[in-house]
């Protein structure tokens, strides 16, 4: 009997390691998942640093290689100029990725769904629509479109205004029905997209190309000044969201249970929707539309950590998002822009969604 027990134990441990679901006391499981998350965070940190190094390398030193440069040496002045331009871009990418990941997780928690991101309710289409309308009405050389700061304020402002209208009006009239909000957002984004396409077809070709350039994710065109203005807003959004991590844990039990545990659910919902609207608008206006980045990052974090606790999930998804964007952009720079970074992220993101849908369907 005793031998039997001893024989069974290693197998049990092994099973537990594989599935994370085996029998065991709470303390050993907590210790196991803690060890696992430490590993995950260390690996991610190393990857993130490597991605940043790759990006800076491909922006600067790689450009000095004789093959690319046709043997013309780069002066030290020009080199430090390039580096000074590359750093705000790196900051912009990391900051936007962090914001997108954080608001995507909070959006998934309040909608109780793993396959939704805030982009799906129309932030991207509103952004593209605003840019197109600006060019169509005022022309590409008008200050509203051509000045990066003014353009940012206008497009972020329009996105925030539309989402506040949606959240305020729709949620109030449908008594906080999130599904109705999602449907409304989906329809709205469809209408805006087709309107945008119509404008793009009838506008002249050079203006069309300008709109294309402004709306596709083009890191190298981000104004360095703008980055420093936007950074504080992003920091506030991220800080306010992360501060609520314990409330998110309770919200993930569902609205009724959360209310029963004394969470002012409607109030929290409204605060979070405001944070999501501001975060999404600011990040999209700064960097362009990255539909799948948030979804990819949040779900990767869930798979990696296997926890419901929001603090580690927030940090992990932010790191995954930053890594994906910076590494993707670094590779793109290295191959001199042959593939846009969104193409890589969307390809990976799309396949991952398929995988998730199939997996969720089975469970």
């Amino acid at each position, binding site marked *: 009997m005793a031998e039997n027990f001893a024989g069974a134990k290693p197998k049990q441990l092994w099973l537990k390691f594989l599935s994370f679901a085996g029998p065991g006391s*709470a303390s*050993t499981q907590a210790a196991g998942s803690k060890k696992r998350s430490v590993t995950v965070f260390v690996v991610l940190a190393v990857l993130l640093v490597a991605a940043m190094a790759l990006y800076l390398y491909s922006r600067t030193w790689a450009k000095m290689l004789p093959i690319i440069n046709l043997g013309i040496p780069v002066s030290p002045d020009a080199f430090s100029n390039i580096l000074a331009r590359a750093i705000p871009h790196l900051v912009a990418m990391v900051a936007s990725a962090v914001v997108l990941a954080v608001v995507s997780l909070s959006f998934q928690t309040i909608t109780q769904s793993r396959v939704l991101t805030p982009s799906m309710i129309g932030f991207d289409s509103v952004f593209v629509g605003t840019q197109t309308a600006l060019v169509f009405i005022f022309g590409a050389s008008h200050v509203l479109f051509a000045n990066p700061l003014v353009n940012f304020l206008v497009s972020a402002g329009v996105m925030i205004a539309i989402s506040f209208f949606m959240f305020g009006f729709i949620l109030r009239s449908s008594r906080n029905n999130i599904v109705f909000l999602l449907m409304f957002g989906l329809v709205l984004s469809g209408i805006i997209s087709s309107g945008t396409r119509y404008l793009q077809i009838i506008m002249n070709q050079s203006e069309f190309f300008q709109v294309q350039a402004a709306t596709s994710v083009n890191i190298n065109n981000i104004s360095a000044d703008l980055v420093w203005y936007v950074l504080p807003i992003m920091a506030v959004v991220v800080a306010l969201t992360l501060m609520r991590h314990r409330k998110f844990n309770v919200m*993930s039990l*569902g609205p009724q249970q959360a*209310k029963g545990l004394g969470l002012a659910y409607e109030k929290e919902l409204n605060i979070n929707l405001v944070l999501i609207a501001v975060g999404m608008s600011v990040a999209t206006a700064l960097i362009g539309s990255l539909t799948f980045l948030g979804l990819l990052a949040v779900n990767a974090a869930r798979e990696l950590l296997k926890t*419901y606790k929001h603090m580690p999930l927030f940090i992990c998804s932010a790191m995954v998002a930053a890594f994906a964007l910076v590494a993707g952009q670094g590779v793109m720079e290295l191959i001199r822009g042959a593939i846009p970074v969104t193409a890589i992220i969307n390809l990976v993101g799309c396949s991952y969604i398929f995988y998730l849908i199939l997996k969720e369907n089975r469970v």
Partner: protein
Amino acid sequence: MIEVQNITQSYSRGKEILKDVSLTVREHEITALIGANGAGKSTLLSVMTNLVPAQSGQVLLHGQDIRKMKSSELAKQIAFLKQSQQLAIRITVNDLVEFGRFPHCGGRLGDEDKRKVAEALDYLNMGDMAGKYLDEISGGQRQRAFIAMILAQDTPYIFLDEPLNNLDIRYSVEMMKNVQRLVSELGKTVIVVLHDINFASAYADHIVAMQDGIIAKEGPPREVVTPQVLNPVFEHKFHIIDHDGKQVSLYYDHDEASSCKFCG
């Protein structure tokens, strides 16, 4: 002390679910709400816990309107277990019970909170199951884990909406016995929606029978579990027998009933 005063509740289409309902909850007793589907039991429970705010009339907790109370304060007084406990997240029994401390600590568990969690788990005999995930244990055990969560919430009032749903006989009896212990040993006040009249008759101290949004009759089981009360409430013919001092209702269409199906 919970007093329900003149609650009228309706959907947007104007159909009244509750019509001028008043009720004073009896302290340190089990009150069972019974009635046909759509009689307003669950709605009444939602209004009494402020899950749905009262539209007209008010619910007073120690003389204070619960709509005006802070939700975290209310959650220290009233615990509520809803009908289905489908969770979108995968958590262990221990995690779930720890959530019960949220109204007290905001999710930052101190020693006191951890002690309460351990006590709640022990009280419901779930100590050895604390590390198991909720999807690994049986429906009855899961229900017990949710009761442990409510116990950790440490409230004088406990509201249960059809806690016996999907439970087999053994777990249903176990659940009701646990609820009885909460009242007799810990002095809780429990309000429970039950579908099975016999469970209400056997375990409740007080029964409130609801019909079409009004309270048709309230009183001890002996007064409520009678054909005179139940027949109109459920629009069905009941046969009540006395067994060991408890009234047991038979509600299948036996011979006398079928000959008199519509006599109500």
